[in-house]
């Protein structure tokens, strides 16, 4: 069952939705940049942005009246945006190493 957004929450619904994606991207950007440059400040900033993302997700969940099954979506967003960039980072590092190792031994 869905409980549609109230009219006074339209702006919150649209805006928090957009911010989830934007903060997700900035978090990923800072995280990757921090790892690449070995900068603790960027890593810290990344988690700061993630904290904003958490707020955006919660505002979104509130505006959308998430309940029951829909809480799963909140969890998926919170965990997905937190962990996926780490996963892609590890993949970036190791796919490149893998290819380079093969390249060097050829």
């Amino acid at each position, binding site marked *: *069952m*869905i409980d*549609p957004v109230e009219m006074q929450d339209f702006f919150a619904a649209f805006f928090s939705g957009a911010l989830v994606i934007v903060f997700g991207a900035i978090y990923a950007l800072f995280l990757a940049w921090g790892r690449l440059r070995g900068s603790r400040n960027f890593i810290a900033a990344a988690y700061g942005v993630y904290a904003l993302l958490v707020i955006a997700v919660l505002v979104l969940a509130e505006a959308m009246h998430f309940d029951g099954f829909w809480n799963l979506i909140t969890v998926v967003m919170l965990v997905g945006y937190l962990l996926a960039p780490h996963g892609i980072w590890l*993949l970036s590092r*190791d796919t490149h*190493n*893998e290819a*380079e190792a093969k390249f060097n031994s050829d």
Partner: protein
Amino acid sequence: MTSKWWANENFWRKSAVWVTASMTLVLILLTFDTIPKISVGSERVPAYSVINQRIDYVFNKERNFQVPVIGQAQPLFGNTLNEEEAEALVTWGKKITQGRNCMNCHTLLGNGAYYAPDLTKAWLDPAWGDSSTRESMMVNFLMDPVSNYMNDSGRKMPNMNISEQEAQAIIAFLKWMSSIDTNGFPYNFKPIDQEG
């Protein structure tokens, strides 16, 4: 130098194949479940002969939105049609809407273009006065939309050379479409007065 199994080309080739195959399989299974539920004569998509009956759009507390409710007899243009005749009429109506390219101005079930109103609940729209004036107003509008238009946006529906029989077929299609259970779309709709 690390060489991890999960960063390996081979692993991802297999993953891509497995993910694609399993998602496709799930989609196919869901399709098998959905198609019978949206076939004509099902609970969600009524038989074409529903055009012989009154259709309402009523708030359902349990589902938390409006749903179509099929009521007592209310024959379209005074004719009660059997299943076969109703299907023929609705089919003709839908083919006319395709042939006249209605969907590139209007939306049907919310899909199409946004230059003209949605047709999902056109049959139930209060623009047609009440249930006593509705049929004749709709026919007149479809046959001569330019002199019967009713908005101040300056936009008019062009005359699509629709005959009276064609207009009746289109209305049959619209009436049938209004009986489809669309999970509450359009939301908060204010239907026509059918008590008159």
